[in-house]
């Protein structure tokens, strides 16, 4: 009589365990994504998982024995390979706030828009990425770390053509300018207008590689564009940019409904 209940409880327990493991592995994958060792880890993990499933399904006892002794060696080698990343992760976990207040992000959006207006008036260009969940590690390695409060004057100064930091892009994480002069990946998309320069290609490339929202101000035309999810929306007024950034960063909604204008 008791049997079905124990079985249901056991299945529920197993489901919870597997779910926690899945979430943990996905979280680790997100943290390691973009790092040098990520491909090694992904390939090794996938191979191990595949072999385990095959050995389980086909009852391959010798492969099973081999797999049984491999985790310890794998764990030790992973700690050695990912030593710098692990240090960064622990530092991040220690310093990350529990909540990201919307008010602060709204202020950041406002500061960026004010900065863009200043740069637009001066006839300068800009490339600003709002980082979300996925980080693009190469940009962090190539850029200059700032960790500064976001302000319109600072952005206008960074993108002033005679300064050393004006080349490349700025990455904003939460309410801080994490770095300037970061090199973003260039898109290989063939469908982009020929008149669009490297800044737009970099913005689009970054939006293909990560889930960041990237704002581009064209130096030549003063047109504002927004790259997100592999799409380039332009031309945008500052009001349109504000509403799209709020939708992406604050509401996390699907912004495709918000007047998408794709560059053909």
């Amino acid at each position: 009589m008791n049997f079905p209940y124990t079985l249901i409880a056991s299945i529920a327990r197993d489901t919870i365990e597997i779910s926690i493991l899945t979430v943990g592995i996905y979280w680790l994958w997100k943290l390691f994504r973009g790092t040098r060792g990520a491909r090694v880890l992904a390939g090794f993990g996938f191979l191990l998982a595949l072999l385990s499933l095959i050995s389980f399904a086909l009852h391959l006892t010798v492969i099973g024995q081999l797999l049984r002794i491999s985790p310890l060696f794998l764990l030790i080698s992973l700690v050695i390979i990912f030593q710098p990343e692990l240090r960064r992760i622990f530092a991040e976990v220690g310093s990350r706030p529990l909540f990201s207040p919307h008010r602060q992000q709204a202020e950041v959006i406002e500061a960026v828009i004010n900065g863009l207006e200043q740069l637009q008036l001066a006839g300068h260009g800009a490339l600003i990425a709002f980082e979300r969940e996925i980080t693009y590690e190469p940009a962090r390695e190539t850029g200059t770390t700032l960790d500064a409060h976001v302000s319109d004057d600072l952005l206008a100064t960074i993108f002033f053509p005679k300064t050393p930091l004006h080349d490349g892009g700025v990455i904003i994480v939460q309410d801080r300018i994490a770095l300037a002069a970061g090199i973003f990946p260039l898109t290989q998309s063939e469908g982009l207008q020929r008149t669009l320069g490297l800044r737009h290609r970099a913005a689009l490339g970054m939006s293909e590689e990560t889930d960041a929202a990237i704002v581009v101000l064209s130096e030549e035309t003063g047109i504002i564009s927004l790259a997100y999810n592999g799409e380039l929306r332009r031309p945008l007024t500052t009001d349109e940019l504000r509403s799209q950034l709020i939708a992406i960063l604050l509401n996390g909604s699907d912004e495709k409904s918000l007047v998408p204008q794709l560059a053909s």
Partner: protein
Amino acid sequence: MKNLLFHNWQAKVVCFLIALSIWIYLKNHDQPGFIDQLWTGTLTGH
């Protein structure tokens, strides 16, 4: 919710497979013979 599940679904499927394998491995370690029981369909829930 839909976005939470389906955004980046390929990566999530791979993570699930890895989690499943780790879980099966550890379960068998904890309960020797678990895989055989699973294979022969004689799991009792204990």
